C-alpha cells in the first residue's frame, strides 16, 4: 500500500511534537497537522516552571518555538492552521485524514494528540461578554485589568496559576471555588494565597455575569447557605476544567464518560495503527512532562506497528 506518509500526527501540542521528534528519528515519513497554532494550551503559559531541566523557567511561546524546530530537525513536515475534519480507516488498513482546506492525506499509522479545550461556564452573560472581560487566558487578557477588581473561577492548577499571574495587575481577586480548598499543587496555592489581594470564596458557584458592553459584576451562590451575593468585578477568568477534543474519533475508539480516549500503556487505541496520548486521553496526571512522554511512547509504538506490517 502506498501512502503519502508513514505517520500522521493530529495535533501540534507537546504530545504531538514529541511524537514527531521520535518518528522523525525513526526515519518515518511524518506529517504533523495542527488546526490552530503549534503548542496548543502551553502557549498560554507565561512561565513554565515545572518542566525538568529548565531551571529558570521558559515561556510557553519560546518552548513551542524550540519544540517545532526540534521536530523539523528530524524531518517531520508540519502544517499549521489546517485541522483534521475526518479520519477514516480504509479496508486495506491505511488511514485517510481529510483536512479543513478540502485536501486529504494518507498514512499507515495515525497518532492522535488533539488535546482539550477549556470548559465553558454555562451562565447568562458568558457568550455576550467573552473577550469583554470574560476570559480563559490571563496572559492574553490580564493587562487590560490593571488596578480593578476581578474574579477567578476554579481551584485546580490552571485556576491558581493564572490567578497568581493576575496578582500583578488586579486590585483584588475574588477566587471562587465550589469546594472548600484548592486542588492545585501546594507550591502554587501557597504563593497564591500569600497575596493580600487574593480573597478565596469557598463553596460557591458563579450564577450570572452582568454587563452590557463589558463585565460589570457577577452573582455568586453559596452551595452551603444557598445565599447569593453580588461582586462588582471587571473581569472573570474561568478555569473550571477541560473538554477533550475527541469528537473527530469518538465513533472509532473507546472513550470514558467525559469523552476522553481510553488507551493502554503503549498508547494504543482499540484500532490497530491508531495511537493516542496526552490531554486527549484518560491520564493519571496532566503535566507537561507526562504528556510529552505519551508522545514518545505513541511514536515508538507506531514504529513497532509499522515494522510488524513489513513482515
Amino acid at each position, binding site marked *: 500500500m502506498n501512502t503519502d506518509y508513514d505517520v500522521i500526527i493530529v495535533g501540534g501540542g507537546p504530545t504531538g511534537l514529541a511524537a514527531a521528534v521520535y518518528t522523525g528519528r525513526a526515519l518515518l515519513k511524518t506529517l504533523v497537522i495542527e*488546526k490552530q497554532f503549534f503548542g496548543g494550551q502551553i502557549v498560554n503559559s507565561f512561565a513554565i516552571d515545572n518542566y525538568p531541566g529548565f531551571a529558570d523557567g521558559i515561556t510557553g*511561546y519560546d518552548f513551542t518555538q524550540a519544540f517545532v524546530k526540534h521536530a523539523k530537525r528530524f524531518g517531520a513536515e508540519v502544517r499549521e492552521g489546517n485541522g483534521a475534519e475526518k479520519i477514516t480507516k480504509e479496508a486495506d488498513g491505511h488511514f485517510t485524514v481529510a483536512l479543513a482546506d478540502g485536501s486529504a492525506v494518507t498514512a499507515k499509522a495515525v497518532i492522535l494528540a488533539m488535546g482539550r479545550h477549556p470548559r465553558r461556564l454555562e451562565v447568562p452573560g458568558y457568550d455576550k461578554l467573552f473577550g469583554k472581560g470574560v*476570559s480563559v487566558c490571563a496572559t*492574553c487578557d490580564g*493587562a*487590560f485589568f490593571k488596578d480593578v477588581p476581578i474574579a477567578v473561577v476554579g481551584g485546580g492548577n490552571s485556576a491558581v496559576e493564572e490567578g497568581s499571574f493576575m496578582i500583578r495587575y488586579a486590585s483584588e481577586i475574588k477566587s471562587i471555588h465550589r469546594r472548600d480548598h484548592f486542588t492545585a499543587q501546594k507550591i502554587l496555592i501557597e504563593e497564591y494565597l500569600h497575596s493580600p489581594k487574593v480573597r478565596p470564596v469557598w463553596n460557591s458557584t458563579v450564577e450570572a455575569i452582568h454587563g452590557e458592553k463589558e463585565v460589570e459584576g457577577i452573582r455568586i451562590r453559596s452551595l452551603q447557605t444557598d445565599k447569593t451575593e453580588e461582586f462588582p468585578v471587571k473581569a472573570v477568568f474561568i478555569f473550571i476544567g477541560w473538554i477533550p477534543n475527541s469528537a473527530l474519533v469518538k465513533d472509532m475508539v473507546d472513550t470514558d464518560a467525559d469523552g476522553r480516549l481510553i488507551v493502554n500503556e503503549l498508547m494504543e487505541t482499540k484500532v490497530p495503527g491508531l495511537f493516542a496520548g496526552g490531554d486527549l486521553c484518560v491520564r493519571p496526571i496532566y503535566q507537561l512532562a507526562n504528556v510529552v512522554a505519551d508522545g514518545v511512547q505513541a511514536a515508538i509504538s507506531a514504529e513497532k506497528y509499522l515494522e510488524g506490517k513489513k513482515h
Partner: protein
Amino acid sequence: MSEFVAEVTDGNWETEVLGSNTPVLVDFWAAWCGPCRMIAPTVEAVAEKFQGKAKVVKLNVDENMEVPSTYGIKGIPTLMVFKNGQLVDSHVGVPPNAQAAISQMIEKQLA
C-alpha cells in the same frame, strides 16, 4: 519586522485605518501574549495574499491605549476589520484554520 504588516499607533490610526480607501484588518497584539505571537506569521501570510486589495496592520496594545479603549478591547489577540472608517467585523482569540478564517474576514468586505 514584518514585510507586509505595518505597525499602526494611536497617532496614525485616523489616517492609516479610518481613512484608508481599502478595507483594513487590524491585529491587536502584545509581546506577552503567546497566542498573538503564534498567529503573527499567519496574519503576515494573509497580508501578502491581499496585497493591493486590502490593508493588514497591527497595533501593540501595550504601547497604544487609546484605540483599544475606544473599541472596548479587553482581550487579545483581537482581529478587527474596518471599511470606510467603520468597524464591520471582529473576532476575539485565534480562530481554528486561522489563515482561511482571517482571509474570509477580508474577502467578505471585498465582495
